[in-house]
């Protein structure tokens, strides 16, 4: 008998409109199951961040229906106990770590989540140590966030969510603005978290990291709806799809006297 993993998120025709004018998401149908590692691929402004905020319960869909852990999101939001349980199980890492690191020290920031959930102080301390250790930033515990480098901030922001020991990790552009070394260290850490069985949804437009951090890829189109859903190998080898999603572009150049055009990843130069 084949056992099916429990669904974590079930979205049926979910849409979101900012200020009743600007459409950020349109007709999203998506199911994410326990233990899945999913990359949400899309160009800037395709609605990836909005979708993550909806999944984290920060935004309420303006259209459609969302179920989380097999419960209606509206019912979760209405019950304080359920809301606590929800935030304990889902952690969102924002794109800008400065937004997430609002406490005077890194240690305080990592302790913030467990404290708000009303955990015992001994448990809070254990979780802080574990999260700092997992991200390899024990030495930054007493540092103020503004003293940190970009990579250190990113790790601290992830640690501040890991201390919640969530089952689901939502990562918004985790490798944005990082130097190559820090980026790959972080990618390895995300891949390791996936191997540990966490459900991870990573919003990104960095095609390089996708095969390492995800078993499944959902491509968001510029019309703010889902353009494709499949395995990384299939999605990443479909140049026409990636061009349509504005993730790569047609590059025209010359080899000697012959004009030649091919798909080219945005933000990178082939062969160099």
């Amino acid at each position, binding site marked *: 008998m084949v056992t099916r993993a429990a669904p974590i998120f079930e979205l049926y025709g979910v849409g979101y409109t900012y200020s009743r004018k600007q459409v950020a998401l349109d007709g999203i149908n998506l199911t994410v199951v326990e233990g899945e590692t999913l990359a949400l691929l899309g160009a800037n402004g395709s609605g990836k961040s909005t979708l993550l905020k909806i999944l984290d319960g920060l935004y309420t869909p303006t259209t459609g229906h969302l179920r989380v852990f097999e419960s209606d999101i509206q019912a979760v939001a209405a019950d*304080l106990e359920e809301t606590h349980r929800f935030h304990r199980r889902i952690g969102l890492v924002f794109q800008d770590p400065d937004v997430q690191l609002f406490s005077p020290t890194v240690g305080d920031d990592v302790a*913030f989540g467990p404290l708000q959930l009303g955990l015992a102080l001994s448990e809070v301390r254990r979780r802080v140590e574990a999260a700092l250790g997992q991200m390899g930033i024990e030495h930054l515990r007493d540092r103020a966030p503004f003293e940190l480098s970009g990579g250190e901030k990113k790790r601290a922001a992830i640690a501040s969510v890991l201390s*919640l020991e969530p089952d689901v990790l939502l990562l918004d552009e985790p490798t944005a603005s990082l130097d190559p070394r820090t980026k790959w260290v972080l990618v390895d850490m995300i891949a390791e978290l996936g191997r540990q069985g966490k459900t991870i949804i990573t919003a990104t437009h960095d095609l390089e990291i996708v095969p390492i951090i995800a078993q499944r890829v959902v491509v968001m189109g510029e019309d703010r709806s889902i353009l494709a859903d499949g395995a990384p190998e299939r999605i990443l080898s479909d140049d026409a799809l990636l061009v349509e999603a504005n993730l790569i572009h047609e590059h025209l150049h010359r080899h000697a006297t012959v004009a030649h055009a091919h798909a080219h990843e945005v933000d990178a130069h082939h062969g160099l």
Partner: protein
Amino acid sequence: MTTEQASAAVPQANSRRLKPGFVEKTLADISSSIERAIFSEENARKEGFLQRRDPRAKLLAFVVLIIAAGLSREWPVLVGLYGLVLVAAAISSIDLGLFIKRVWLGMGLFSGVVILPSIFFIGHRELLHIPLGFFSLTVHGDALVAAAIFVLRVCASVSLAILLILTTKWADVLKSLRVMRIPNALVLVLAMTYRYIFLVLHTANAMFLARKSRIVARTSGREQRWWIVSSVGVLMSRSLRMSEDVYQAMLARGFQGEMQTIDDYRMRPADWLLLSASILVAATTVAGGRLWW
């Protein structure tokens, strides 16, 4: 062109360079002050006498001493108190030269200028007569003592406050405010203000630099005013957006409107000793000084 000609041309070229505007200069100054504040955190990480003390004990001790300095009326007592501050700074690995300069060049000079006229216009005991043509100035001895007490009082208090900041991490200073029954929410607001004002200032500086890099000629006052107004608007909207994001980040980690915090401080015998000694010194400064004099 000879070397002399070249070097003569340099000041001419420099004189044509655009001078920084008032707002730009002010922002750069504020930003560098905050950076200096961060730099001073390095002092707080040193292994000195005061750095090892519990921040709550330190805060209470320094507050008591600052109040005592404000209430003291005898200059020898104030000199004694200032001496103790210097000893505390020395055993806390603080650069004494820099510490003294920082206080006296700023507050000493400022309070001196403020109090200076009083030595000529108040008091009874004439000390010195200065003839100045058609009129003369008289320095009064008792006014001079009162002025010295004022300056000493200011400098002793400011020295205590600076020593507290130099030997305590800003985060610990803020957390310690809770000992004084300051509500958690207010401490959080102060901490977040300190955290984000730095970020906003950096953004403002970056905007000024971006504008400066595109300017090739002097702009009119009207244009400058328009730019400042629009920059303030942009900064305001960015700050608002950021505050919304920060609030969302708090909600995402279970924030329900009531702040829960963690303190890992432990009062050791040496901390109690510091607190007791400070109360004793403060009592001596206020009452003892009067009895002795």
